């Protein structure tokens, strides 16, 4: 006698018995409204550990994620935004919600940066995803000014381990806050641009943008 339910994960209304068909009609509108209210309420109750939004940019869709302390993650589409969110849930907190307003300032400053109206970011940053030597490397990257570049070896020389050139490469590749913490300004000693977490095309575009070449 038991009806077979596929799974309510599809959100399909087909699984509801005919007697209830009228009940599901306004569900999606009601849900959109409720979800919106829920996100504000969660933030108000201090339960929004990680807020995120996705913005468009000349280097593709960017995921921006922030904690109450500040921007914690900027991710390129090629990193897999879903995978990045799963990872944030595991490493920061599973209380992850789409909540654009916390990222308004970051989105605005990135817009200004891509419009060449901004050279430095003025944002609260949360570096909890970079520890130890990686954190130390990231701290030195803003020393490379807008429109300039430095080699991995030069950056290593600024740190407590001046010979750790490869580790500088790793720190850049794993930079949780690319663009804002300018790992794209670190290039190879031979002058070639080298790899980038956002892809080599993105790195070329950013360096061209900053040099004013367009």
């Amino acid at each position, binding site marked *: 006698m*038991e009806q077979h339910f596929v799974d309510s994960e599809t959100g399909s209304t087909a699984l509801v*018995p005919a007697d209830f068909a*009228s009940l599901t009609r306004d569900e999606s509108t009601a849900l959109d409204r409720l979800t919106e209210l829920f996100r504000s309420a969660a933030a108000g109750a201090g339960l929004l550990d990680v807020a995120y939004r996705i913005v468009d940019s000349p280097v593709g869709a960017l995921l921006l994620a922030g904690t109450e302390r500040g921007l914690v993650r900027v991710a390129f589409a090629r990193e897999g935004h879903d995978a990045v969110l799963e990872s944030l*849930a595991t490493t920061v907190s*599973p209380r992850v919600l*789409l909540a654009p307003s916390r990222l308004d300032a970051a989105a605005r400053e990135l817009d200004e940066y891509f419009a060449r109206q901004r050279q430095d970011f003025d944002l609260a940053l949360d570096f909890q995803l970079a520890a130890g030597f990686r954190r130390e490397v990231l701290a030195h990257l803003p020393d490379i000014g807008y429109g300039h570049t430095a080699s991995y070896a030069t950056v290593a020389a600024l740190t407590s381990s001046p010979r750790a050139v490869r580790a500088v490469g*790793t720190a850049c590749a794993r930079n949780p806050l690319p663009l804002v913490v300018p790992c794209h300004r670190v290039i190879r000693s031979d002058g070639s641009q*080298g790899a980038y977490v956002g892809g080599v095309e993105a790195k070329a575009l950013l360096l061209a943008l900053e040099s004013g070449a367009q």
Partner: protein
Amino acid sequence: MSAAVKTGSGAGSAGSGAPAGDSLPPFESIVATHGATILRVCRGLVGPHNADDVWQETFLAALRVYPSTAGVLNREAWLVTIARNKAVDHHRRTARVPEPVESVGDGPLGVGDAVVRSVEAAEEAELVWTALALLPPTQREAVVYHHLAGLRYAAVAELLGNSEAAARRAAADGMKSLRAHLGQNRKEDS
């Protein structure tokens, strides 16, 4: 050069693959996956006019404890349990069941008009909610958990604190009374 290595995430060790066995997905996906079902449950338990508040309370309570619930296997049953508790709180606060809708039709409605059709759909829904609210509590819950939320009878029995057979019977009796109520109302209306 190691900079060429693409890492899945800022955390490094977690990588970009599937989450580890006991890791929790972002809460956003819990809302997206189960929001609709829980809304039906809330409407079924407290009626459509109070369901929004109970839904909010349910998801806020779920979010609050979420980080410590990695052991939960049936996420939907977990949420339904919270919704049930919130519905009980609601009934305790208001100490009454949802009011039946006030007079459904004044005057005959036109035909073919989209507005009229949507009004009729809303009225139809109100009839169902009203009929649900008239059921004895156990039947009402059994119908909501099984037929609206899609929970298996074993999970329904766990919520109701009875046996699977009793849960099945309560749902069947509930559906029978519901259809009787609805048939009556529809006849009266037309």
